[in-house]
């Protein structure tokens, strides 16, 4: 399966390597560097590459390339999914997944990688199993460890590894028992020039934070489960119950986890919370252009739109901008040619507007296409699809947990073509 892993930073330095079988020379990465060179943007590097003796499968996240070298046929998604799991684990352990943090914690990283794969086959990828074997670093413990010579390596076999509920460890205890669920929905949409919806869908995710003593068995039910079209679950969810009764029944992992992701059935019309009036034009004659954007509320279900932000990737010819915003601030990054307009809260009485001129490079033909606008927004206490959690029940434990559900709507890939 996976032979070796190389971590490569943005500028092409290999700063960590790990081999699970015989050592593969790091010269194998040269093929990758070649492809990286060709692709210009790091996102454009093809995830699967072939070299004379190896296959290279890589992912790019948090400015790091996770490059795995393999020798035989293996489903590429298997490797990609695993590499992302490695990245997630780093994130989980160190709070971020960056070159510095990995270098600082290289021993823990190495121990983690050792546990996650055996002979190239994933062994323990559940975060709670890993955390029992290798304690995540924190300041207090590292101080104590240096004084006492103690270690962050657990000395017992994690119970989860052997049980039928590998995601939960035994003997969890809390003084405050609480279970919080965040229903977060994202609107993915493409609007065309005139504001009509070319494509729109809602995807949701239920993030849970469960801190409950013992082995609780939870049941979460919805007022309108019919809205959910396609779902995927954390392994803890009993699929049979879902199929027959449309309730989520599960023994939760301890701590934060993603309970389910779903897509709202396409029959339902998607409410688009804002409308955008825009006019971007590049004048043929002079070396300048005009930009005028206004945003107003559309279908907000009576809630306030917050965290509104517009990002525009300008054509390369745009040198600088001279704009005034009636609300919020705007910045133009010359290097990436990105215009960011951070609006904040949307006031329906006084619609935010951004207008002004763009100065263009002279002698370059005017851009064919107007740049599309990427909209970011948030609406608190609203699931735009109308999904509602009706109740949460707990079985198997005696105490009364504190329960809470929060709703949030966000813009996902929300694009307005101009």
């Amino acid at each position, binding site marked *: 399966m996976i032979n070796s892993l190389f971590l490569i930073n943005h500028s092409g330095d290999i700063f*960590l390597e790990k081999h699970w079988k015989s050592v593969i020379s790091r010269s194998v990465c040269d093929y990758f560097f070649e492809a990286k060179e060709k692709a210009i943007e790091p996102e454009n590097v093809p995830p699967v590459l072939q070299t004379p003796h190896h296959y290279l499968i890589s992912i790019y996240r948090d400015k790091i390339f996770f490059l795995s070298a393999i020798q035989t*046929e293996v489903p590429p*998604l298997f490797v*990609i999914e695993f590499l992302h799991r490695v990245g997630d684990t780093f994130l989980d352990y160190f709070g971020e997944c960056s070159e510095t943090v990995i270098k600082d914690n290289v021993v823990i990283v190495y121990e983690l990688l050792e546990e996650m794969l055996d002979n190239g086959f994933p062994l323990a990828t559940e975060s709670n199993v890993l955390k029992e074997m290798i304690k995540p670093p924190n300041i207090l413990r590292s101080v104590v460890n240096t004084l006492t010579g103690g270690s962050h390596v657990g000395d017992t076999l994690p119970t989860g590894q052997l049980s039928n509920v590998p995601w939960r460890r035994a003997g969890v205890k809390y003084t405050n028992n609480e279970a919080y669920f965040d229903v977060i929905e994202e609107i993915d949409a493409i609007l065309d020039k005139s504001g009509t919806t*070319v494509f729109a869908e809602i995807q949701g995710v239920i993030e849970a934070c469960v801190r409950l003593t013992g082995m609780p068995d939870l049941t979460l039910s919805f007022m309108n489960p019919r809205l959910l079209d396609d779902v*995927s679950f954390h392994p803890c969810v009993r699929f049979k119950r879902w199929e027959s009764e449309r309730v989520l029944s599960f023994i939760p992992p301890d701590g934060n986890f993603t309970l389910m992701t779903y897509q709202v059935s396409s029959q339902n019309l998607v409410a688009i919370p804002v409308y955008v009036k825009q006019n971007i034009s590049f004048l043929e004659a002079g070396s300048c252009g005009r930009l005028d954007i206004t945003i107003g509320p559309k279908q907000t279900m009576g809630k306030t739109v917050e965290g509104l932000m517009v990002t525009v990737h300008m054509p390369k010819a745009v040198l600088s901008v001279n704009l005034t915003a009636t609300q919020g601030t705007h910045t133009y990054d010359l290097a990436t040619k990105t215009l960011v307009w951070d609006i904040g809260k949307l006031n329906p009485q006084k619609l935010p507007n951004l207008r002004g001129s763009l100065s263009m490079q002279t002698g370059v033909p005017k851009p064919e296409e107007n740049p599309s606008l990427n909209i970011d927004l948030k609406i608190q206490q609203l699931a735009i699809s109308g999904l509602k959690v009706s109740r949460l029940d707990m079985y198997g434990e005696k105490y009364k947990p504190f329960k809470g559900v929060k709703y949030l709507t966000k813009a996902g890939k929300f694009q307005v073509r101009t």
Partner: protein
Amino acid sequence: MSLATGYNDQTGAETAVEAGQETTPTTSSTGAAFGLFSADFKKNEDLKEMLESNKESLKLEAMKRIVGLISKGKNSSELFPAVVKNVASKNIELKKLVYVYLVRYAEEQQDLALLSISTFQRALKDPNQFIRASALRVLSSIRVPIIVPIMMLAIKEAATDMSPYVRKTSAHAIQKLYSLDPDQKEQLIEVIEKLLKDKSTLVAGSVVVAFEDVCPDRIDLIHKNYRKLCNLLVDVEEWGQVVIISMLTRYARTQFTSPWKEDAVFDENNEKTFYDSDSEEKKGQNEAKPYMMDPDHRLLLRNTKPLLQSRNTAVVMSVAQLYWHLAPKHEVSVVTKSLVRLLRSHREVQYIVLQNIATMSIQRKGMFEPFMKSFYVRSTDPTHIKTLKLEILTNLANEANISTILREFQTYVKSQDKAFAAATIQAIGRCATNISEVTDTCLNGLVLLLSNRDESVVAESVVVIKKLLQTQPTQHSEIIKHMAKLFDNITVPMARASILWLMGEYCDRVPKIAPDVLRKMAKSFTAEEDIVKLQTVNLAAKLYLTNSKQTKLLTQYILNLGRYDQNYDIRDRTRFIRQLIVPSEKSGALNKYARRILLAPKPAPVLESAFKDRDRFQLGTLSHSLNVKASGYHELSDWPAVAPDPSVRNVEVIEPVKEWAPSLGKAKQSKSDDKFYSDDEEKEEEGSDSSSSEDGSSSSDSSSSSSKDSDSGSEEESSEESEETSSGSGGSSSGSEKSSSESESEQRQKKKTKKMPQRKRKPAASDSDSDENGNVDQASSSASESSPESESESDSDSPAPPKKKEANAQPKMAVKSKKEVSLLDLDDFTPATTNAPQPSLVSSSLLSDLEGLSLSNVSSAVQVTSPSFGPVKTYELLHHMTGKGLSAKYHFPRQPCLYQPTMVSVQVILTNSSDHVLEEIHIGERSPASLNLHCFNTIERLEPGASVTVSMGVDFSDSTQAANFQLCTKEDQFSVSIQPAVGELLMPFSMSEADFSKEQRNLQGMNETSATVAMATANTPRQAVSKQVLSVANVGVVSSSQDSMLRFSGRTVSSKALVLVSLDLKEPPAVLLTINTDKTVMASMLLRDLKRALAQA
């Protein structure tokens, strides 16, 4: 050190300092580096010192630094002796880090590595499974050939370890050993074979990986484990699932026949069909089509389907490919939604999934067409994702959606990403050729693009237009002219070449322009790219043939230029053309055919998807992704024309998956059902109506004998009961009718899934459809008994040969139980008020039936005050005809059960009516297996004619669901069932009148059930009324201050829920009967029983 120097050469990015640290003085050049190196040398020295110190913390610190070196790819192998000493350290972290080091360097320092082996060997015997496992892990990771025998031994031992975790590790070790020494293959296969039989979900994934690695061709090892793997699949960890699914895909392609043929032969094989799909829908499909899917094949499809909901994208993809390669065509589309869902995942995941969708969408447009909009391109997508989406959109294009797609394409053409814009133009070209309706529109659109300012767009358009024109050149001379005009402005070689080719090919359509273009080319010939030069030569040749007058000189000039070109291709071509077209004395026969050669009508190019040929690879594989056969790729074989023997997958232990038994198996079994029922049926008739049929000779004996036993009082009772039977079944018409009709085999199979709850409760005797099977010989009826009975109870497969050996039967039940549990759970979760009344009706009719059979109700002295009072109604448990001489009756003694408070105590009277001694009478397996039953001790010996009374306890869990179990003798097993009347599930509960009223107030509203009953005679004494109540239900009398009120209280045995019964006798003969309990289902059943009893009072 050589290794380190190697690195330096390869990684230019390494800083000079680092380079210096690793290189030996001989290879390193600068003095500064040398200095640094010596410093580094010292550093390693002090690491060595630290390792040799006595302080744990220093050692640990040293090891941490060494791991840091390893992670950077720096060599620290010279520390090996110092490190290996610490392998036996007590400090777990230190030990782990030493392991990391060992695994990394043991291969290079084989002799020294051997020093550590004994530590591992000792650890392999450690009582802690964790230590055993990690010792095996490291031992097997040390790639030192000398220790192969030790590894082999360790693996063999670990494969039989108690701990599944250790067994899992041993499965991983198999691969490591195999890669170290392939000669061990045979022995390793043995271990794999052993581990494949492992039932732990932990092991399953790892051993399949080992199997795929070591002996993927030994498909025979899978046969016996196939069903187990299918059933375990859902519970295996996600990585294992991927491997198992892809292995099973390969397996299925060799073992089953293709489900894609529409007219496959109907497979009547009983063996194969005994379990098949559970749902009616699937059955319908099977009936509609003559092809009969192998049940194992279906099993695989069914058990993998839920995994489409996995959060692991690799699992979803592997299920999708399994469906693509194995499922009947119409079922493949279930994977669509899940695949589209994966498109929301990481960029890399999208890339792979889109590749697979691209391949799928070529063959099956319909699958993804409804999700077309999900493939719309966003400006933020990376280029390779964009082009894949474009590819898919093109594949999905058809007459209906082409206008939408083209509108979308228009946006893409304007994209700033020029590579993508060019790809879009090609896509438009493909749409134009594939869908003739839009060819003209596309062509016009492309011509408009020719005036685009971006050169690459124009160039691509030219190329595509060229291809399009080839398909229908006649009407398009205008376009060719237009392109000729553009020629001066286009610099992209491919586009120029394309225009030249077009000119030449259709020179007769543009007779004026073509020579002029040639003239321009003659001028710029030397500066052109090779491909343009070639086309210029072509154009010249063609013009020479058609229009030699104008172009002769030009052509010769160009040919001369070409003759001395630097490129040999062009020189060759020029020479060839010259010989071909210019007539000379030497020129051969070809000259005559020059025109026909050069100006032959050429077939239009077919614009195809780049993914056209990818379907030769299994979807989701690396090979598919690269479109190259990767090493270690196992070809997916074609379906066999004839399926290999499916019985190889049969195991002694029969798996519980199958819900119903189709075709032959069913027919046979339902027939035997009839026989079985008929026996009881006759008895019932016998009992209830003495004047009726004397047809069943054998059974009439039995019933008459039983009626002899009963006294006169019971005689009366029996007739009453028979009336009840009729009224009961009449009143409950729908329920009982259904149950009787259900027993007709076919309907039953269909309804089986839906009616499971009541079917489970349906007693054997309630059927009344089997009159013609009267004279059934004893043997067959008794033989058939066990199987149909178990079938009706458990609703699982049980194709079990009727006379199954117990050894086999035992594990079967165990597996079955799992299923039963889930069924029960469901019942628990949904108290199903809709279902409940029906079973209760059935059960009551059964009750009366049974009462009709063996009437021995001794309704003696009703002690009103006594809390536990026993109107002993005896029911038949096993008739001596069916029991081969063993007969059993039972009654509820209404005593608190000794064994467990939640059990209802039951007394069973066993009688030996045969002429031989019966031995070892005991209770066998039960169903549902979760049934909590306290068995009586085995009766070693029962003499002929003797009888013995034993008591047992049954936990009915407050439901009237029958307790089914097997009554076994030494030779035989008989399935029997105890069906409790609802009243028997109660225990008297004494309380004061005040308490009673209080509790009653608490249980109002929906917890109250009431009815008015007209009693048989007006002035019935209270005693008689309460006697009737007590005969029906095991409740206690609550003293009442009012004359007209009768109150009874009880609690359910299992859940201790209060049941309050009150009768208001104010206006006789009408009695207002009220029951308060939160067990509403029980209340309604009890109410009905009481009504019936009171109507007779």
